[in-house]
């Protein structure tokens, strides 16, 4: 069964401040609390579509994800999972930023679809929603609190 998830928040900083951090496909080691260390394979630039990031979580798990779309026009990036210790088949995620024009703020929307095995559907959906998206968005919100 395919799962679709979406989580979002508003960051108290302008899009022009937030996007330079998030468009860097390797920057999650800086801002996401679950990430231990990360590197782009083969020395490719982090904004090269097709680049692969290999990273370890703080619990020691190793994952690889590939950047499949990056848009400085839409302020969005899309990536898929290549390898993970948990069965998240067909995992594709998109993060997109939009300006909140009646204040210097940024709306961040992070969504994905994937196909977990039926007997782990609830567990894995909760894991992705809470430990990846909600934790990541909360960290971003805190990082930019105060407008920068």
């Amino acid at each position: 069964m395919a799962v679709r998830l979406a989580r979002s928040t508003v960051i108290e900083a302008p899009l022009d401040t937030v996007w330079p951090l998030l468009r860097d496909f390797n920057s999650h080691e800086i801002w996401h609390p679950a990430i231990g260390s990360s590197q782009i394979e083969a020395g490719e630039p982090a904004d090269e579509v097709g680049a692969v990031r290999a990273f370890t979580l703080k619990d020691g798990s190793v994952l690889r994800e590939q950047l499949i779309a990056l848009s400085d026009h839409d302020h969005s990036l899309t990536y898929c999972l290549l390898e993970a210790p948990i069965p998240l088949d067909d995992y594709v995620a998109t993060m997109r930023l939009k300006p909140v024009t009646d204040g210097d703020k940024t709306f961040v929307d992070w969504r994905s679809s994937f196909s977990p095995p039926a007997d782990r559907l609830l567990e894995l959906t909760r894991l992705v929603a809470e430990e990846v998206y909600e934790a990541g968005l909360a960290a971003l919100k805190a990082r930019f609190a105060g407008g920068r």
Partner: protein
Amino acid sequence: MRNDEEATLAKVYTSSTLDAPAGQVWAVIRDFNALPAWTPFVAESRIEQNQPSDKVGCIRNFTLKDGGRIRERLLALSDYDLSCTYSILESPMGVENYVSTLKLTPITDGDRCFAEWSAEFDCAPERAQELVAHIGTNVFLAALQALKSRFGS
């Protein structure tokens, strides 16, 4: 209709956050005939030919409080994406090929939503700046601010 050849493609984008769940705001704005109920600048509105206001293709015919009359056609309505797209058929503004979309997205870390209202149109180059400012501020922002106060922020 304009008959000179030069026209500028103008784009407007206005967005805000509303302190109410997306579904609750959508219930107000999905009614294509409800502008007098939630915007500060529309005096009265009707749907032509007695069509339902959620029938894609229907035309709303409304007058502004300043007396202007506008006719707009509903091009798309999505209860799934919480979005509404329409075109202007007649207006006093001097715009051509005007297409606009109003869309809500939930902000999931609170009972709030993100509202964005965008438009694209052709106009005389010398009027583009003024029209973008007018539509972005006096129309879209004014209406979104009215929605904000309606939902208590």
